[in-house]
């Protein structure tokens, strides 16, 4: 099998908790450069699916990225294969500076000797990421002092320096103001071009503005998949998820 681009392939993924199937046979393929949105009702299993991909939830079926099978590996090994994620609640290292946060994210492959030495220079990737996520001016601030939105950007920056090939973002713009959402969307578009990106979101305006393709989950199964307009027009999606008013008309 030869390939030109990375892709993430899930087939028949199931996650069960005490007899309850949170994810119930999901198959999907996400290609590099395709900004895939994952939507669905509360409790549909979106976060659980991300958990399964990143090794946090025990799953059956198969999840492959490139040549590697991800299932059954411990979290940190999956991360080393280039799978990165963010969390619904921003989680950065609050006692460390922005720079240190990024430096740690960049260094999982470092050998013990490098680790035991002090950082003498800022790695180029970190410098780049600081610019990309717009935190260059805040590099020495403790991450705990950042605002909610800045923390979420820092998290994305950490994914970038981590050199993640797959980015799984769980509600990255929740709680952001309209222009912050806009900026984040553009950032995702920029970094997503050569990566495989999955975004879990409930913000339909945001989705409309930035999604390349959409997968809708319902009760642990794929309900619909396709382009933004197709999915929005799907009556089943409207029934279980969108309701009558799908739009707030703010990201214009």
């Amino acid at each position, binding site marked *: 099998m030869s390939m030109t681009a990375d892709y993430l392939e899930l087939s028949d993924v199931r996650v069960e908790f005490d007899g309850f199937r949170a994810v119930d046979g999901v198959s999907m393929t996400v290609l590099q450069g395709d900004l895939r949105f994952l939507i669905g009702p509360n*409790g549909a299993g979106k976060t659980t699916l991300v958990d399964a991909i990143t090794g946090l939830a025990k799953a059956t079926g198969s999840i492959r990225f490139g040549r590697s099978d991800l299932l059954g590996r411990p979290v940190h090994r999956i991360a080393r294969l280039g799978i990165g994620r963010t969390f619904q609640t921003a989680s950065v290292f609050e006692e460390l500076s922005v720079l240190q946060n990024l430096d740690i994210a960049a260094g999982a492959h470092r050998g013990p000797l490098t680790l035991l030495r002090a950082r003498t220079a800022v790695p180029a990737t970190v410098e780049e990421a600081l610019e990309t996520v717009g935190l260059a001016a805040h590099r020495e601030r403790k991450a705990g002092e950042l605002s909610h939105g800045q923390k979420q950007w820092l998290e994305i920056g950490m994914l970038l320096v981590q050199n993640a090939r797959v980015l799984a973002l769980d509600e990255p713009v929740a709680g952001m103001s309209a222009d912050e959402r806009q900026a984040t969307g553009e950032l995702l578009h920029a970094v997503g071009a050569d990566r495989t990106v999955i975004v879990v979101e409930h913000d*339909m305006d945001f989705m409309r503005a930035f999604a390349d393709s959409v997968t809708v989950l319902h009760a642990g199964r794929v309900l619909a998949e396709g382009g933004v307009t197709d999915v929005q027009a799907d009556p089943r999606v409207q029934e279980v998820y969108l309701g009558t008013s799908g739009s707030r008309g703010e990201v214009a």
Partner: protein
Amino acid sequence: MLELVDVHVGYGRATVVHGASVSVPDGGVAAVLGHNGAGKTTLLRAAVGLLTPTSGRILLDGVDITRLRTNKRVHRGLAYVPQGQQGFPQLTAAENLQVVADAHPAARIDDVLDLFPALRQVLARKAGLLSGGQRQQLAIARALLTGPRVLILDEPTEGIQPSVVAEIEQTITSLTEAGSLSVLLVEQHVGFALAAAQRYYVLASGRVTSTGEGGTEAHDTVRAAMAI
């Protein structure tokens, strides 16, 4: 109804809100808008008593409650939905509601569940195991269960699916329109916030930089104010 007068509040030595005054009209909605980190949550925490202002006063029905403990404020009719889908993770969803009902004899769990039917399916599950949106619905249900006269909502629709968001917005509107409830609302979705609010306040770096009448026509003014 609820009035915050020149409130200064922060964490430890750092003051985050520098003299904000906000007034929630009787049976109406006041919206607080602002960027991430502006101090919205901080202000609301002061309103319910989770933070103590270094100066300024908080009045409920004209009575100074600045020094009153949070649970006493709640018994006087204040309810709060915190940001971030919080709950009692080790208690089941049902117990999350029951613990509120225990403290409020008049509470009727069935009635609030009618507002969030999706919760009925997960009542026996621990709150910590619920999905983000389920937890948020539970949080609003808990607050309503206290039978509030003033409801303080910190980004209540964050993480909730669109159809339910619409329902929540409707519920808020109908409760306030019935005159039984006043609402202090923090929302990032300016559209809904302004539609519901009689009065808006834009908070920037802990100061109210702009305020005015609510209504959709205020939209452009507010966006301009927030763009600073």
